[in-house]
């Protein structure tokens, strides 16, 4: 299987790179395989990521994110 485009290329993206970052962080922190290793991020760290992301989201002109 060969995939020509990827999320970081943003070729299939209708959103800005900031929107892609928010989508990525959602997936990194809530998705993915958990094997029972150590998840080194404390809950406080995760909250911190979202606080800084919210600041980012509010600075993104959402109207531009539609296309």
């Amino acid at each position, binding site marked *: *299987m*060969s*995939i020509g*485009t*990827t*999320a*970081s290329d*943003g070729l*299939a*993206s*209708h*959103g*800005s790179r900031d*929107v*892609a*970052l*928010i*989508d*990525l*962080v*959602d*997936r*990194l*922190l*809530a*998705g*993915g*395989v*958990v*094997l*029972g*290793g*150590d*998840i*080194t*991020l404390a809950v406080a*760290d*995760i909250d*911190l*990521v*979202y606080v800084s*992301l*919210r600041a980012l*989201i509010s600075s993104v002109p*959402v*109207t531009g*994110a*539609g*296309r």
Partner: protein
Amino acid sequence: MIYLYAITGPLTEPPEEQGLAGAPLETVGVGSLTAVYSSHEQLELRPDVESAWAHEHAVEAVMSSQTVLPARFGTTFPGLDELRDALIPHADALERRLEELEGCVELAVRIDPLIPIDGQMADGRQYLMEKLFAQRRREALAESALACLMEFAVASRVAPTPSSGETVSISYLVQTREVRRFSRAVARLQTRWPEFALSCTGPWAPYSFVTDEPALSTSTEAEIA
């Protein structure tokens, strides 16, 4: 310390991509699975933008040639033995999932209300009514989007993710050959619903589909049973 990026099928050589802190990617085979990781004397993992993209780039490097199961961000092991020990009990489920996900990618759809509700509104009742109305419209759109986009998708999951707030966020598992048609369908939805901003990012590795839990799961735990 071992930092795990992804699990994949047989892989002869590590992808030529850097992982966290610029460390080279390495691979270890466990049965027919391959774990993609990087080794670190010391790794102070910070949940910042650079680390997030470093993890993603490592995953994408594998994804460019084969089906991949991305690992949860921040998964570490003291050493290779511990990684192997953790992998072996899940090996069958992971192999099965890799087969099921072959040829598929994840697309992220986000629905944002364009007109924020005015918090300064004098009338509390009016504010609540507006908020309720906006919520209903958003739910109607989400339902319509779910139904219409499923035509091009294999599976979907609505994620009540911590970043969402007023946003509806839906993950779709889409066959690679359907990505363009899916993307065009999102554009059509946007035309039909101008009061919302729709975004569609990807293709991502199937972060939201690493287990075969039923769609619309409200669980944020992705632990392989």
